[in-house]
């Protein structure tokens, strides 16, 4: 004679414990879920904040230093004029390489900070 609990388990797992096939159930659930919450991940949010702050900072500084910018542009054209006249000077290439390295380091740091 079997124990009452064993019989119940046997009978109920026979009728109700069978695996129920998905048959598109998951897809129906996913289709009926509320719309995406449109939440940015924290990393994306941080990157967006950095970019926005940079853009705002650049704009403000450009507005505030508008008269000085003209002076800078004039000086820059003078410098480039001198440089073009002295491209045979080896120190010119060293300056260019340093400037490129510095800007690359800045760009990589920004990318890395934004990803984390």
């Amino acid at each position, binding site marked *: *004679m*079997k124990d*009452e*609990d064993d*019989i*119940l*388990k046997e*009978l*109920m*797992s*026979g*009728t*109700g*414990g*069978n*695996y*129920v*096939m*998905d*048959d598109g*159930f*998951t897809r*129906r*659930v*996913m289709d*009926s*879920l*509320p719309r*995406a*919450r449109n*939440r940015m*991940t924290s990393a994306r949010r941080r990157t967006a904040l950095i970019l926005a702050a940079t853009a705002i900072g650049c704009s403000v500084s450009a507005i505030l230093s508008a008269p000085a910018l003209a002076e800078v542009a004039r000086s820059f054209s003078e410098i480039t004029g001198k440089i073009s006249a002295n491209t045979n000077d080896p120190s010119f290439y060293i300056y260019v390489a340093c400037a490129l390295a510095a800007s690359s380091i800045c760009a990589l740091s920004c990318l890395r900070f934004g990803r984390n």
Partner: protein
Amino acid sequence: MELKDTDLIARVLVDDDRNAFAELVRRHQSVLRGFLRRVTGGDAALADDLAQETCIAAYKNLAKYGGASSFGTWLVGIGYNRYRQWCRKKKETPLPDIPETPDDAHGTPEKGMEMDVREAMKGLRAEERAALELCYGQGMSHDEAAAALGCPLGTLKTHILRAKQQLRILLSAYSENA
């Protein structure tokens, strides 16, 4: 490597990762729908409607899942509450009777005794049916079933005892034939 339920839940909560939620549904749909089919007396269409509502409610309230029980148990608990809500509504607006022949997805022939138990279970109270199904059909422990049904352990044991008393005649007949 297969992710744990807790990892998937974290992805849904942090990134609103719908693929992670789909995986959770895929993993637990069988237990949930099997349970609801049993407590609704084999009405597969009603059980699936309730299961769908359950999953949507789980998605909306996922942040409230505290991890005290497994995700499956939590989901079944929501399913059981949905079923009780449906029962309360049913009292107000009569719905068609539960079909005599349950809609079986696999089409496997039912044994006579199993059919008798299925019929006899329709005569049980909803909470007794749910308790019996969770403990014997789904193999949950008494603690897990009590957590899923949101009742104290003693109450669950009482439900099981009463249900077994009502099924005793059937069970003793089966026991003698076995």
